[in-house]
């Protein structure tokens, strides 16, 4: 089985602060980590590898220093890695990101399963997974909280979390899934993995290697414009109703009707 895991390097969210006056993240002095939900994607791939046997390739698009995220993936047990890095990729929104990722996956060749984290903790769009599936022309299931009980080279049974409950699905491969953190508990790296990660030369693919159209990558290929960023404020108001219990219920009903809740 060939599995491709798409990961992203993000600022260490626990350490990062928000400058609410300027509306930007204060990134200085903050370390970079693998997007935490992507650790669950890697774990999902490793679990499938443990049971079915698989070759896992981790892919990331990012600046040269994103190489560290790939080394961390190797230390966890990922077999191969590719760094997609080019000035022309910078400033990409999800449309331009999925374009580059799809080009890279086509270059890697055949795959049975692509696994992404549910969303990146910096952008929080959750669009890259399904967007990538559309470009690869394969079915996708998002927010997977359980894989199995039946898994085989060609078919996965899955549980998907929804707002109203859970969907039990069967997914024919090749396909793409995005995983919810409740799916698994990511393992720790191994010493052998860490040693291999240290020695590995990470291949870097740029615009030309992918034969990509520069109009469709990076800032140029991104129709999304950020108008402004702010922390939404939320004010809870409260009111204590008085009177007998019957009167209070009456007032409450009126209020709820006024508010259009009932």
């Amino acid at each position: 089985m060939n599995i491709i895991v798409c990961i992203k390097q993000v600022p260490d969210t626990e350490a990062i602060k928000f400058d609410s006056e300027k509306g930007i993240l204060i990134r200085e002095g903050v370390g970079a980590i693998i997007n935490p939900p992507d650790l669950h994607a890697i774990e999902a791939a490793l679990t499938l590898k443990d049971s079915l046997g698989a070759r896992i390739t981790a892919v990331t698009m990012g600046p040269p220093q994103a190489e560290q995220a790939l080394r961390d993936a190797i230390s966890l047990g990922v077999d191969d890695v590719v760094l997609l890095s080019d000035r022309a990729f910078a400033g990409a929104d999800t449309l331009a990101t999925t374009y580059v990722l799809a080009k890279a996956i086509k270059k890697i060749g055949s795959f049975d399963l692509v696994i992404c984290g549910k969303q990146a903790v910096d952008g929080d769009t959750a669009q890259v997974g399904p967007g990538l599936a559309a470009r690869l022309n394969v079915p996708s299931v998002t927010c997977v909280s359980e894989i199995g009980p039946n898994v085989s080279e060609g078919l996965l049974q899955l549980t998907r979390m929804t707002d109203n409950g859970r969907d039990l699905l069967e997914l024919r491969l090749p396909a793409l899934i995005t995983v919810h953190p409740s799916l698994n508990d990511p393992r720790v790296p191994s010493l052998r993995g860490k040693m291999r990660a240290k020695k590995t030369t990470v291949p870097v693919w740029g615009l030309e290697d992918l034969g990509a159209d520069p109009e469709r990558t990076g800032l140029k290929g991104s129709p999304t414009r950020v108008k402004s960023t702010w922390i939404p404020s939320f004010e809870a108001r409260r009111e204590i109703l008085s009177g007998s219990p019957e009167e209070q219920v009456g007032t409450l009903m009126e209020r709820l009707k006024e508010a259009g809740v009932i």
Partner: protein
Amino acid sequence: MTQVNYFLTEEQQMIIDLARQIVEEKIIPVRNELDENEEFPWAIIKDLAQADLFGLFIPEEYGGMGGGSLEICLALEHLAHGCIAITTTYAASALGGYPILLFGSEEQKKKYLPEIASGKKLAAFGLTEANAGSDAAGIQTTAEEDGDFWVLNGSKQWITNGGEAEIYTIIAKTDKHKGARGASAFIVEKGDAGFSFGKKERKMGLRASSTRELFFDDCRIPKDRILGRRGQGFIIAMRTLDLARPGIGAVGVGLAQAALDEAARYARQRVQFGQPIISFQAIQHMLADMATEIEASRALIYSVARTIDSGSKNISKIAAMAKLFPTETAMKVAVDAVQIMGGYGYMKECPVEKMMRDAKVLQIYEGTSQILRNVIGKALNSEYAKK
């Protein structure tokens, strides 16, 4: 501030990083609950196995990482930052594995070492009995030859990993009248006929580790389970303990460092009489002694470990030193950490409360502080006889 440079290799640094990551992500979140419930830490044992740590001291040809004493000391020290009950579980598997590594036949090594290295099976070491603690020569468990079998009878007491481990190295008497040459070492497997376990002991500290009695009731094991030669039992036990003692010293250093970290952070932030308590000289001097003795312990352990790794023989004296000083330091530092943290240090929610309960055992198992001094003293006596 410059820290002491121990000139560790990149791989040794990786062991430290890995152990610390396991402590942060896996051990600290559950250590109180495991302690409270006296629950065996199987999930973390799996993590340690996944991380390749069980194979650190085992040669690569038997599925290990080919490391030596320094490597395992580094792992033990840094795991001990999180919880020494879990670290003891890990250390005891090595203790059960050393006799096989040191004295096992090629077949025995091929059969058992890969299982221990992968962490798929835990090992244990059984020497102590109800009537034989410090005086190991007083053991009464016997092993008698019977055709193609050895038949074991007797019991062992306070055996770490008892009931949880699959592979046990057991010291038993094979010739009652031969004194020091009267014992032999055997490999006993969980499931062998006539081999059973007592209830789990309830303890002051180290509560997540499992300590049990082992019973041998006409326990029949195949002849090829003897380790080394008949009569080598005590030599095997002593060589095993020599190798393991610096590791227990390292556990002490890890625990002491964690206690110092807690106490120093608290002392900076706790205000009394209008100032942080760290501004009082009485507190500063306690912290200074703690930090200095921890560093001295660490330096001693690393030097002894490197001496062992260079292939030195007759290491009993230096191995005893590398357990004695660091574990005495660990107890003292843990007590002082509680003192610095005052009433809060005595509360269950404060990490040093458990550290102080846990630390005590380090001065007892694998040779009490008194017995270690006996070993060192005896060595000095014979060294000075020659001068």
